[in-house]
């Protein structure tokens, strides 16, 4: 029976951590049973591939593996030096440790959740006094990452590797290929966005991960430009959710209806028994949002917003578009929940 991968990785790690001098590949092959098996039953090649993969996996787990080119007579030597792999002293008091346990189950994505528990396990092993159960607010913050592109983009941003992917812009009929140097990932209102340098457009761009179709492929070579110190993905994305508006609109709203609009209103005037008049911020996607309120709302101005809402309502009512209305569905992705 083949030896399980975890056992093999563990053995390699222990060998590399427990040596004072660099070990050659041959020595490691003699010391780790799984390698010996692979070499005997397979080939030199099979063993080499396995060894390379395992080293990469251990590095992903945080092990610093030094490669020594000199001491072993032309052969490469490997070791994980204790001083480079030790966690520095970390003195968390009970309160700080308890607060961290709030964080343990936040990630809803397998790799990040594994990494977060791995970090807490290391801290626990290092003596951080985590209590058995917290006395916390019954609050469960969750960071979702259901988008398939999340993991490859996170790794690419970490390693500063350019990527290509098929991307379907909002409202576009087809996806197109984009070549991007990924800078930063941001989660807002439960959705992930990528900011990066678009190589073809020669400009910074923000992408919504759910609109990436197909695989994220990493490309060889380095970034062509510097990564900005601070990337404000959030401000950019918020604009397209209708936030940060500078214009205002006036609507008539049935009394008692449209609570979300009322909380945003800059001014509310009572018109009569049935209607109020509201002054609201007019940002991207407002027309689509206002159409949701149906007969509870009438847009008084500005004219383009009024025309947009009329056009939407006519479409739903099964009426032809009016000639005057030439707006297309640009505003379709507002702050919908």
């Amino acid at each position, binding site marked *: 029976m083949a030896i*399980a991968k*975890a*056992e093999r*990785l*563990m053995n390699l790690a222990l060998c590399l951590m427990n*040596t004072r001098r660099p070990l050659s590949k041959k020595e490691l092959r003699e*010391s780790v049973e799984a390698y010996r098996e692979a070499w005997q039953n397979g080939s030199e090649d099979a063993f080499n591939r396995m060894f390379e993969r395992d080293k990469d*996996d251990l590095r992903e*787990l945080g*092990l610093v593996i030094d490669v020594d080119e000199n001491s072993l007579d032309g052969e490469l030597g490997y070791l994980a030096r204790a001083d480079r*792999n030790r*966690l*520095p002293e*970390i003195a*968390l008091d009970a*309160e*700080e*440790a*308890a*607060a*961290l346990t*709030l*964080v343990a189950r*936040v990630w*809803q994505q397998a790799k990040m959740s*594994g990494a977060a528990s791995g970090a807490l396990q*290391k801290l*626990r*092993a*290092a003596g951080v006094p985590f209590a058995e159960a917290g006395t916390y*607010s*019954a*609050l*469960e*913050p*969750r960071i979702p990452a259901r988008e398939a592109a999340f993991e490859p983009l996170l790794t690419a941003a*970490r390693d500063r590797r350019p990527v290509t992917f098929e991307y*379907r812009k909002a409202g576009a*009929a087809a996806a197109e290929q984009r070549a991007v140097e990924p*800078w*930063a990932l941001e*989660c*807002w209102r439960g959705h992930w966005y990528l900011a990066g340098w678009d190589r073809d457009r020669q400009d910074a761009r923000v992408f919504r991960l759910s609109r990436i179709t197909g695989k994220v492929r990493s490309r060889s070579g380095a970034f062509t430009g510097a990564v900005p110190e601070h990337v404000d993905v959030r401000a950019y994305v918020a604009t397209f959710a209708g936030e940060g508006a500078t214009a205002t609109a006036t609507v008539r709203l049935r009394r*008692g*209806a*449209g*609570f979300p609009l009322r909380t945003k209103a800059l001014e509310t005037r009572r018109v009569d028994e049935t209607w109020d008049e509201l002054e609201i911020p007019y940002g991207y996607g407002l027309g689509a949002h206002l*159409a*949701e309120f149906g*007969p509870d*709302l*009438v847009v008084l101005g500005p004219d383009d917003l009024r025309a947009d809402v*009329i056009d*939407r*309502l006519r479409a*739903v009512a099964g*009426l032809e578009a009016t000639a005057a209305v030439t707006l297309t*569905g640009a505003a*379709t992705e507002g702050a*919908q929940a």
Partner: protein
Amino acid sequence: MSNAIDQTRRMLSLVTYLRERPGAEVAEVARAFGITERELIGDLNVLPMCGTSFRGGDLLDIDTDGDRIWWHNVDDVAQPLRLAADEATALLVAARAVAGLPGLRERDREALTRAVAKIENAAGDSAEGSARVGVTFEAESHVFADIDRALSEGRRLWLRYYSHGRGGMTEREVDPIRLVTEGHTYLEAWCRVSEDRRMFRLDRVAEIKVLDTPSDPPRLEPRDLSGGLVNPSADDPEVVVEVGPGGRWVAEYYTHDSAQELPDGGLRITLRSADPSGLRPLALRLGRDGRIVSPPELAEQAAAAALEALAGYPEGRA
């Protein structure tokens, strides 16, 4: 194979942990590592096969009687290991997001902020990548304190709540179960009106009162939220929406059973809803970007509502 990675990671910490605790109890160690006893026993079966040289017999002599764990040849292989870049990123990003959570108790926020600084320090280079990932939770704190109090004191809540589907306010008494934040913050509660478990979005709570009545939600299995917070049940009526390219966002925002590509670049989306008429706002919003295929009553309701709304616009009528 990510399981092997997680298991290796865990075993590396496990040896460090066991080193300091001769005779550690299986149950306690499993709890400390957030795994089942079965998983721990699995690890303990692997560890004696590990060591620096299988030929020299230099293996970890760790054994268990199923109750306690003994390590007979403790050596100094087991130093606490530095955090990997992904570990530091996962922990720091989550910790910063939680520390910024509106409504978090101030003491917790301060403790978490201090912990973040210490971890950044201990992680060194590994912490760098965490600056490239950000998570923001929405600020919806005006009712948070009352809910938190109701939860900790075990009391019922009265809510005036905006129902998005019906477009109006509802008043109800609920027994709070937990608060869940994913983008927005939601209160999961047992609704005494519908006699059912419901999710209430905090920014739609117009008014709240903590009642003197003790909260008494039925004992329920925690709901599995892995597919999203809004998880329609399989018996809920089916709704079919066809959208053009401009309406593809529907598939991003609504949990759905299927989304089938259409030749024009649009989608045919099949979803479920306990109350399809609650999707009227969606039907109205779609405009020319899509239409409700079924149930037909929903399409009719939306069309009627649109016609009625058009009455408010002299220039918009037929």
